[in-house]
């Protein structure tokens, strides 16, 4: 099977769905690039080249460059979705939600409920997240917990190229608004990705490995780190389950609890800032619903409560690492077994 990058996987998903369904359109700033400029058409193909080539195949009518106007085009995507298109809008960096969030959380997310179930809003917002690019505080955040908080939105966070293609096709075919998070440091990751179209259902966690000692739940890029940590820990005879929820809304809490009941130990790894992030949410649900099964305190591995810094020395310290995950797992293994009440 051919190996493809995360970038190619998303591109292929968009292309195949645009071929399959004429109501699918893509829009965003520099989604083709060079609009109105004297140089090449499709000059950028998206800020990091993810949508390259779509213009040539589908034309300006379905590949829509926009002015730098996030409120206008994210709102337009919502309005288009409510009236019959399936738009995929590129909100370049999720940090830019600050200038258009109303159109997402007050409009698109709530149409269906406010209108008594008579509307559907099948839109996808693609957006880049995450630290590691030396892009500093306004281009590096992991804001998926904010979107996960909003009823009416779905949130997908693929952890690999295979996951990205299947989740993107599902997102486009889904009748609800989906926020699709792409980690900017993962675009060149490669793995085997089928040429054919396929879907990965939302709300079904992926077990990357199953072990008896500790459950590690990780999100997005952190899945890769958690897997690496688990491989190292296996050599120390610590046998970990690594669970990727794939979507934080809906969240497959059932699989997480099932695993925690088996291992009795939980470590949650989340690149989002630590207050009210996915780690706190998942930990709270585990504590509430599987307290009796826990043999040790839950550990959360998240960055500190600070903005993402610029200097490489500081940013590297900010991002959860394989070492920090390993240390958290060792600490829950070392915790004295809780006595039954």
């Amino acid at each position, binding site marked *: 099977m051919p190996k493809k990058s995360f970038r190619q996987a998303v591109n292929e998903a968009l292309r195949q769905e645009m071929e399959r369904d004429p109501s699918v359109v893509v829009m965003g700033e520099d989604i083709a690039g060079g609009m109105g400029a004297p140089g090449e058409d499709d000059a950028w193909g998206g800020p990091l080249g993810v949508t390259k080539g779509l213009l040539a195949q589908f034309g300006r009518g379905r590949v829509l460059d926009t002015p730098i106007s996030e409120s206008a085009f994210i709102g337009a995507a919502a309005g288009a979705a409510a009236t019959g298109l399936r738009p995929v809008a590129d909100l370049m960096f999720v940090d830019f939600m600050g200038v258009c969030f109303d159109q997402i959380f007050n409009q698109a997310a709530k149409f269906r409920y406010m209108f008594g179930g008579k509307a559907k809003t099948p839109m996808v917002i693609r957006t880049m997240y995450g630290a590691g690019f030396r892009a500093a505080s306004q281009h590096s955040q992991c804001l998926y917990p904010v979107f996960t908080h909003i009823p009416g939105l779905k949130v997908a966070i693929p952890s690999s190229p295979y996951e990205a293609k299947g989740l993107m096709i599902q997102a486009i075919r889904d009748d609800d608004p989906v926020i699709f998070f792409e980690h900017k440091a993962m675009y060149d990751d490669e793995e085997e990705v089928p040429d*054919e179209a396929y879907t*990965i*259902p939302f709300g079904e966690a992926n077990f990357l490995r199953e072990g008896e000692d500790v459950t590690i739940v990780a999100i997005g890029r952190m899945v890769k780190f958690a897997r690496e940590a688990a491989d190292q820990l296996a050599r120390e005879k610590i046998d970990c389950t690594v669970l990727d929820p794939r979507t934080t809304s809906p969240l497959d809490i059932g699989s997480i609890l099932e695993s925690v009941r088996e291992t009795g130990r939980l470590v949650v790894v989340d690149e989002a800032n630590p207050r009210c992030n996915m780690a706190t949410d998942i930990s709270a649900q585990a504590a509430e619903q599987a307290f009796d099964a826990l043999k040790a305190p839950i550990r959360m591995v998240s960055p500190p409560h600070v903005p993402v810094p610029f200097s490489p020395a500081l940013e590297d310290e900010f991002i959860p690492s394989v070492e920090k995950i390993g240390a958290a797992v060792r600490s829950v293994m070392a915790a004295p077994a809780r006595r039954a009440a």
Partner: protein
Amino acid sequence: MPDIAPLTMPKLGLSMTEGQVAAWHKADGDKITAGEEIADIETPKITTALESPASGTLRRRLVGPGETVSVGALIGVLADPVTPDTEVEAFIEEWRARFAAEKAAEPEAAAPEQERVATPYGPIQVLEAGPAAAPPVVLIHGFGSDYQSFLLLQPLLASRLRTLAVDLPGHGGSTKELPGADPASLAKAVAAAMSARGIQAAHLVGHSLGAAVALALAEQEPARALALTLVSPAGLGPEINGEFIAGFLSARRPRALASVLAMLFADEQAPVGHEMVEAVLRAKRLDGAEAALSAIAAANFPEGRQAHSLRHVLADPARPVNVVWGRHDRIIPASHAAGLPPHVKVTIYEDAGHVAHMEKPDHLARLI
């Protein structure tokens, strides 16, 4: 036997480069008979028992449980009990030196890759391996599987035969548009894939549903089927495990699917590899795959019964036929092997289940 015999990491599948000794069943000093299971070998795709290639005393285990080594690496040594330790040590040292030198000298040949061939029924995925001039063998997998079903058998055959493993329509990398869901229709697509690769006639090896497809092909175009090897074939009796079929279709999560796939093996505790489960899940997620598999299940195994009988195809005494079954087959009972015409050679493995080509690949390879 020679005084000293090496135990090496086997190559389980065309793309395997290393494997793990999951467990030893024998200890240093145990007497071993050739063919006895002495260790479990694990790869991400499969876990399988290593059968001893020779008889003797297990003198040294060189790789501990859980350790991963390259294919061909020495993992243990068998020798006569009277052979001195010094000779055993010298053998090990010499073997390791030679292995290291050989590995350095010849880089691994690239594993053959699967490809899609165009047919009138749509693209059909095949994996071809073995010398092009050798007699051809066509491998046809069972329901819900794909060419990787022959992961263990195909490399054993490919050393002397031209092998072509075919993904049936609705399966693996082949088209999800079915030419029809019954064995006769699926057989047309297999014949088309053979033609596309310039194979007019071959020894057809079919497993389960694939065996029914092989029978249907032999019926439609007798000249194409020079011989038949049928592993736990469908089409020879009415019973089939409806729970397996329904469970396979409905399972969406790894754990649920793993417990369904475990029914394929004689050993109920058979660890079904994570990658095998993942591969099946991924195949089922492809657009159209679930619908195609459901249609095939409905056409061939409605309500836990088999819809097609193909026993009559075995009547021709001129065509050599092997029927192979595991005594512990929990999908299609081995009793279907009874009452076949006398020219049909029936082999029942006492310690195999529904997938003798995975459980007994070496024996099966010798039969073909």
